[in-house]
């Protein structure tokens, strides 16, 4: 659990944050200049707040009142930078072992082999950082941070410099790190998609202040949160399992996997574009809230493949649009106009049908494994 109260003024920028993070993975979302990186660097000890207190798992890292300020090298936090910052004079293997070598063996949580296997780095061990592609370098940077056995992994826009295709190749690794290592993570990004792919617990920053913290669907009604999330590309991320393929229609049938959130509904069946993956494979797909339509009853005579039955769990009024959260086995955010809400007579608890074309589903894994 991380407790952060801190304050800092630099020129015209004022950073004033007070938050408690107790989730294993927390995303920090905000536009550039909103203070995301400042927050992360404060936790890591690279920036000293003018005043405040930072406590991680009951260990005081910084306290301006008692004058405590643990230097970065004693904080044991794995910071992964946007620009990788691999050491150019060391091989990939030596980069990976850099932090590990500084620890006594009993404090080393992972062996080099475990991490190399987890992130599939075997082919590059002898390379120099200059020989790696952007995506490979970032994987090495994550591995290097992991091998330093951090108490928390701080990821500072690790994918920002990569293109969409490369991002899709790295996300599965980050998910694997999350699931296998169990190290708490703070994931900073200006791209909501990346964050929501890893967690639905977020802190939204705007102008150096926290405007919302908690599960996305709980904080979205705040106009400031909504504005930031919309700006940064709010999407549904669906955990799905491949069920079967329909080669004639060029479709793949999938089933939702339940999230940790409470639901009494059974999983929903959805159809997406053809995906070259074996039945049983677990994947993630993205679905934009504006690509989903709602209907009060099942429609006949329409070409839309997906008509999924659900129940309205929440109606959120934001300044320009309304968002309806529908439980279809997993929560699904649907964006619609205020008049749409009125015409459908939507209310919490109502049964409703979610309609979207199979092509609206975008798979996040590009290379099936």
């Amino acid at each position: 659990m991380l407790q952060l109260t801190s304050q800092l003024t630099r020129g015209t920028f004022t950073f004033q944050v007070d938050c408690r993070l107790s989730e294993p993975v927390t995303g920090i979302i905000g536009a550039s200049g909103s203070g995301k990186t400042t927050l992360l660097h404060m936790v890591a000890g690279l920036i000293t707040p003018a005043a405040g207190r930072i406590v991680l798992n009951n260990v005081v890292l910084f306290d301006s009142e008692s004058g405590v300020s643990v230097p970065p090298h004693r904080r044991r936090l794995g910071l992964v930078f946007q620009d990788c910052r691999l050491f150019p004079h060391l091989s990939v293997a030596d980069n990976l072992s850099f932090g590990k070598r500084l620890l006594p063996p009993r404090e080393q949580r992972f062996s080099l082999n475990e991490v190399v296997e987890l992130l599939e780095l075997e082919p590059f061990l002898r390379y120099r950082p200059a020989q790696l592609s952007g995506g490979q370098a970032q994987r090495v940077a994550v591995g290097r941070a992991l091998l330093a056995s951090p108490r928390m992994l701080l990821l500072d826009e690790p994918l920002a410099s990569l293109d969409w295709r490369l991002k899709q190749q790295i996300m599965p690794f980050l998910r694997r790190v999350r699931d296998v290592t169990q190290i708490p993570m703070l994931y900073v990004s200006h791209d909501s998609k990346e964050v929501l792919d890893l967690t639905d617990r977020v802190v939204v920053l705007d102008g150096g202040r926290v405007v919302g913290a908690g599960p996305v669907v709980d904080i979205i009604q705040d106009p400031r949160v909504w504005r930031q999330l919309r700006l940064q590309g709010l999407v549904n991320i669906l955990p799905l399992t491949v069920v079967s393929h329909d080669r004639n229609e060029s479709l793949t049938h999938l089933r939702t996997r339940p999230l940790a959130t409470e639901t009494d509904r059974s999983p929903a069946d959805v159809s997406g574009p053809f995906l070259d993956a074996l039945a049983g494979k677990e994947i993630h797909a993205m679905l934009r809230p504006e690509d989903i339509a709602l209907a009060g009853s099942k429609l006949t005579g329409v070409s839309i493949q997906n008509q999924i039955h659900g129940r309205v769990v929440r109606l959120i009024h934001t300044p320009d649009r309304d968002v309806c959260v529908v439980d279809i086995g997993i929560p699904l955010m649907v964006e619609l106009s205020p008049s749409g809400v009125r015409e459908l007579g939507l209310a919490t608890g109502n049964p409703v049908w979610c309609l979207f074309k199979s092509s609206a589903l975008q798979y996040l894994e590009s290379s099936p494994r």
Partner: protein
Amino acid sequence: MVWLSHEEWVVLGLSARVAICCAAAVAIPGIACGWLLARTRFPGKTLVDAILHAPLVMPPVVTGYLLLVVLGRRGIVGEALYSHFGISLAFTWLAAVVASAVMAFPLMIRSVRIAIEMADPKLEAAAQCLGASPLRTFLTITLPLARPGIITGLVLAFARSLGEFGATIIFAGNIQGETRTLPLAVYSFMQSPGSDASAFRLVLISILLSLGALVVSEFMSRRLTRFERMAG
């Protein structure tokens, strides 16, 4: 090289010894001062910078004179050295080392400073986040990244020492077998009739050594820029 006379061999041997000791003497203080100038801010930094670089622009004879005033047997520091330890520096081969080290020091500092300034502080921050103390970060990240610059500085100091004349002749004298280094020997041979051939041979050797040092230093600075590109 059998065509060198015994006297010329003595000159070369002494020059090599003085130049190697000079490079060794400036190594650690040069790295320390280069780092201070590159990475720290303190009041009077400009003044310290100017004083350290003074030997580069002052007439070498003046530097030699000042060394004599400070370290000579009746000098401020020299007197204490002699009365407490019985050490008299002036007019010994060590004086030649000191004179050339003072002359070479600014060259060493300059190349170390530039190399450390080029070493990305972001990499140092990354090392600290991985658990490396500031000292370990310096030893494992900053120094290796600056290594080409450090080697360039040492090569330049070595070459400067081989060529040093003014400060050496004032502070160490021109004593055959003791302080007569290459340039002093060339000067002496030119002054004595019939030694033109000796002077010419030593001049030739000087030119070769200087060019060699330049090549090494150029090679090293290319490596430095390559590291930079790789880091970026």
